[in-house]
């Protein structure tokens, strides 16, 4: 390997990481600003805005709902997505291309459009309660990520272990649970994580599917910044970052992060 070219590549990478992470660092530092104006460098150090997060009950309430919707929707997307991902990567059949496109389509349709369609049909025409519609909408936006990630973890999969299991006396369904699922576990975890982020941060669909007593954290944050310009949302972001870093640390310990790359 050519050392100097490698060095150049390393420096470029470092610079790009600076671009990616610098703004997050600024948010981190600025969140300790004592005054009500987010600024950098901060004028002092205060945990005022962290305190504020816990004193405004709406932040906690919406955080809880966001977690519930993202987790339940994720579960539902898994139940729908795993069989589909399996069929799409295991078999060749007519219409596979179309079905593939169909399952990816929620990514390709502008969020505002989806949100507005959900509002119009799920809530108005189908008369689903708000919570249900929110849950359905989030399931739909998570589905393509779940399917994509899991299908690609099965793309290079050697399905002969499934035949081996059947040959040894396992039913087809039994074989799926005994040998397929354990071997795509990390793909499933990666899929779950990416889908979760996609859902947890979603604004454009949630904004149509919230109502009395029902709102998600990003929507609450948006509402908050309509009226305030204090560092509270920065503080929330910092908390989420720490929360995520811990979560990623655990994932890395469990399965290794390289599975994220298998999209």
């Amino acid at each position, binding site marked *: 390997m050519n050392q100097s070219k490698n060095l150049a590549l390393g420096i470029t990478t470092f610079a790009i990481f600076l671009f990616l992470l*610098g703004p997050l660092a600024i948010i981190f530092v600025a969140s300790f600003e004592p005054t009500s104006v987010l600024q950098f460098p901060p004028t002092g150090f205060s945990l005022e805005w962290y305190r504020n997060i816990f004193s405004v009950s709406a932040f906690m309430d919406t955080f809880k709902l966001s977690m519930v919707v993202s987790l339940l929707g994720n579960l539902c997307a898994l139940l729908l997505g795993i069989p589909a991902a399996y069929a799409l990567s295991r078999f060749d059949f007519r219409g596979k291309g179309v079905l593939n496109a169909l399952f990816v389509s929620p990514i390709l349709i502008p969020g505002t459009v989806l949100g507005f369609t959900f509002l119009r049909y799920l809530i108005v025409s189908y008369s689903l309660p708000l919570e249900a519609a929110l849950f359905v909408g989030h399931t739909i936006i998570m589905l393509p990520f779940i399917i994509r990630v899991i299908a690609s973890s099965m793309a290079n999969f050697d399905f002969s272990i499934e035949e081996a299991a059947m040959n040894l006396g396992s039913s087809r369904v039994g074989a799926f649970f005994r040998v397929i699922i354990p071997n795509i576990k990390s793909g499933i975890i990666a899929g779950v994580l990416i889908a979760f982020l996609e859902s947890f941060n979603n604004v454009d669909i949630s904004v149509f599917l919230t109502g009395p007593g029902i709102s998600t954290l990003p929507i609450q944050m948006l509402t908050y910044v309509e009226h305030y310009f204090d560092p509270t949302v920065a503080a929330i972001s910092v908390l989420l970052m720490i929360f995520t870093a811990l979560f990623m640390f655990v994932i890395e310990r469990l399965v290794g992060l390289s599975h994220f790359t298998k999209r």
Partner: protein
Amino acid sequence: MKRSGRYFLLLPGLLFLSIFMIIPLVLTISSTFLEDGSFTIAGYMNFLTDAYFLDILTTTLFVALTTTFFCIVLAFPVAYYISKINGSKKALLLMLAIFPLLVSPIVRSFSWMIILGRNGLLNDLLLSIGIIQEPLTILYTPVAVAIGLVHLFLPLMIVTLVGVMENIDSDYIRAAESLGASKTTAFLKVMFPLCMPGLLIGSTLVFVGSFTAYTTPALLGGQQRVISTFLYQNAITLNDWNTAAMIATIMIVLTFVVTGIFQKIATMLNPGGS
């Protein structure tokens, strides 16, 4: 397994998507072609002949394509670097690359305001080292929007590209070098075309994301409207759902056209690929 079993596995997801998304979407879109019960494309003609609308459309397209382009340019070295290293360093870098995905776009935009503003960090820095005498105007220009969007979507592109690059046999690069290609040439002529599948997915995600982005252009952009603002205005402010649905349809069609063109370009650059 019996053939029908395959479809049975797809059925739950398919039904779910059809009932809750496809049918509503088709109904929404088809209603825009109906006026008093008969087929019409008059509404669309109005849009497509309106210089103002076309201006918004081309601006948005331009911003989205520029963002996609810069994401590609910036993601490549990072992804290449990550795909070449091993072990815990790789895990760490991947983790760091994904990290920004978790921070709310609003908050990220705030940070860019602090950096790019008239009295922002960037101007302070440039002024203090004497590169410029007058503060640059970056914030509230399309440049700021593009920077914000690139920041927003770069992680997606990096992650997708690392995925393909990891699976590209480094012997291709060696083969090119042994035939006389410099590292750069080998990268451009071999690595780049072979990354097409990942590039395609990445570009699609970035393009759709920036084409439909709302928060970032609103916060970092200047007076120039983007199409999602326009959609939002019609749907929410004016409560004109029919117009909104038309804009939505145009957006969907454009998305499909652009991703189709991406596909074409990818096939052109990597005709042997699957």
